């Protein structure tokens, strides 16, 4: 994962050219070995709090869902929880509603992530450039975040109301197509509306991450590049992008997972409608828990979602890692 080699001086392996086989450990400088051990111990101690907190919060829910997924747990029948093996899973994976929603969710994830990362990088580049009023633009970009996601989704539903919102009104005023479409009532137009509402908050998120990555790149790199005759475009692709890899990777992984797990926006704007065309996997998860009160199915859905998320995170990591390592 790191694109910078930061390892300190390595311990030199003992020479075996001649002489009796060295006793374990004594041939190495004792201080160095222990130093590395202590460093590792310190490192573990530093990492421990984060892991402890996260595991403390998620361990029981994870175990609980896992247990539920192998039993029949229906809320209205408390007390009867027979073992059902992988029944919940086979039923889930064989359900066409699930495969449909999985396909939908993945398609939306891919398209929206690509677009949002693209837009986010553009915004980050703009925010990184020095110009008058940059502070104001930075604050303006982050304003959408001041509105909690749940509220934002509700407000966007109103914004897409042909009668009481601005989308149709503005499109009509600018004579652009789409002013007479009820966006939330169309099979794919609903997804566009969801994408817009989602991007309003997630593009700034990507931008901030990428901006942080841009700021670690020292300006000497660019000076060297210009001296060598590289133009703006070349210096962007050959110098900036490789050094942005960690930030891009972070943005990509988190956006992919957040997109896959999208819920609040969909629930507030379309509730999975029209029909079932915007039902995502998290919607099915919600349905299992809160509509069918079937915690066994809900547990199976949750675990399946986690497994798929793992795979997606892995894919995302491969996507950025595959090129050669760059060091600063």
């Amino acid at each position, binding site marked *: 994962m790191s694109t910078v080699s930061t390892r300190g001086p390595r311990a030199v392996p003992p020479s075996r050219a001649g002489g009796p086989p060295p006793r374990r450990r004594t041939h190495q400088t004792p201080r160095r070995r222990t130093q590395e051990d202590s460093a590792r111990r310190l490192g573990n101690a530093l990492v421990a709090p984060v892991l402890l907190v996260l595991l403390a919060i998620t361990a029981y829910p994870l175990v609980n869902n896992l247990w539920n997924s192998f039993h029949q747990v229906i809320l209205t029948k408390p007390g009867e929880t027979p073992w059902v093996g992988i029944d919940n899973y086979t039923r889930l994976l064989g359900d066409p509603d699930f495969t449909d929603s999985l396909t939908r969710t993945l398609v939306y994830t891919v398209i929206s992530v690509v677009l949002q990362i693209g837009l986010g990088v553009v915004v980050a580049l703009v925010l990184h450039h020095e110009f008058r009023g940059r502070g104001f633009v930075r604050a303006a970009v982050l304003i959408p975040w001041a509105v909690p996601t749940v509220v934002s989704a509700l407000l966007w539903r109103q914004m897409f109301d042909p009668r009481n919102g601005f989308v149709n009104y503005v499109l009509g005023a600018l004579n652009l197509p789409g002013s007479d479409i009820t966006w939330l009532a169309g099979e794919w137009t609903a997804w566009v509306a969801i994408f817009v509402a989602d991007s309003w908050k997630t593009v700034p998120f990507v931008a901030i991450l990428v901006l942080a990555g841009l700021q670690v790149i020292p300006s000497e790199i660019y000076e060297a590049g210009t001296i060598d005759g590289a133009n703006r475009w070349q210096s962007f692709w050959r110098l900036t992008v490789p050094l942005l890899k960690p930030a891009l990777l972070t943005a990509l992984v988190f956006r992919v997972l957040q997109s896959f797990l999208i819920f609040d926006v969909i629930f507030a704007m379309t509730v999975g409608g*029209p029909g079932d065309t915007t039902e995502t996997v998290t919607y099915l998860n919600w349905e299992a828990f809160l509509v069918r009160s079937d915690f066994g199915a809900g547990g199976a859905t949750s675990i399946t979602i986690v497994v798929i998320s793992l795979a997606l995170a892995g894919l995302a990591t491969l996507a950025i890692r595959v090129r050669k390592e760059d060091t600063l």
Partner: protein
Amino acid sequence: MRHNISRSARRITLFTAATTAVLLTAACSGPTDEADDGVTTIVLADAGLGTEADATAKAVEAFESANPDIDVKIESLSTDGTQYMQQLRQRLVAGSTTPDVFKAADIEIASLAESGWLYDLDSLGADPDSFVPGAVKAGQPDGTTVALPWFANVEGVFYRTDLVPEFPATPADLVAAAKAGAAADPAIEYGLAFEGAKYEGAVTVFNLVATGMGGGLDLDNIASDENVAALEFLHDAIYTEGISPEAVNQWHEGEVQEAFSSGQTVFSTNWPFVFGASADGPVDGKIGFAPFPGGGGTIGSEMLGINAKSEQAEAAWKLVQYLTSVEAQLARAEATGNPPSLLAAYNDELFEIAPYFAQVAAVAENATSRPSTPKYTEISAELQTALSSVFANLAEPRAALEEAAEKISEINGS
């Protein structure tokens, strides 16, 4: 060096441990203690905000002054219906003894009862016959009264009395009247506004229209010809007759009321709160409320139940009795427009407070409630999906209803 590193390690671990300890001790400031000076405290779970919460608060105040030894704590779980039920269920599943009294929609009672979370009200002395019959049925899913109606909301058709001289007798007449009204008044933009979003409100509208046209929510017969005709009526209103906008696909009661209260629609399907919400507006005084042609109406009562695990059942029962007394019912009706559930409350005093309650009573007479089954939420979800696809023109009414019927019989079979 080594000395420094292990010392740093120790310092960090100590720091983290200390912080965690502080946080945990702070966390152990538990809930407030029960007062033990002869005062019983009961918890009432409610959702409303605005006028409904105010009315509830006032009723509780009046109850407390009449019963000085009972203290009522109102817990507001959420204004959103789904979240309210989720919160309530979470507490009941956890075996909590509070809330002692809670409200729940009529469609939720059957499943709450099946889980054994409702107190037997007959044993406390309930008198179900004193309530509006259509409303109290939901509180008796298997004969025993486990919930009583707090107020009996009923959905009907609102119309502009100035644009519709005679209320239409058939659905076709309604379409014609809608077009005529729209032609007569330039401010009118829609003939019929209804709730078409993917939520429970769409099911109540469908029931309203279907029962008027001879159908209804008979779970064994969802795809009946009458139901298909009813759904076709709503679908055609949007796509053939053009009296309803496509926007209904995202409209809830609020949006429909806004359109009506602003004088932009001739007809609309909604609940009696529209009377109060339209007061002092452009349509004040021109509002009529009637069943859908053929006598269609939907009942949606809010019920009161007592937690089966409540430790203050008698005090809780006293609160329920108060809230369902004539005095409290009239006060609430005046403040919020919630129609009373107690038959005795439909008296002259009520009609003096708000004359429109006479029209509400007329709609309630023939209105039907939705099926009382523990699986209602699941069944309704299938209906909602079907209705939503038809309203968005993604499916044909008959095909959608048949698919829903299939899924519903699967649900009922399991």
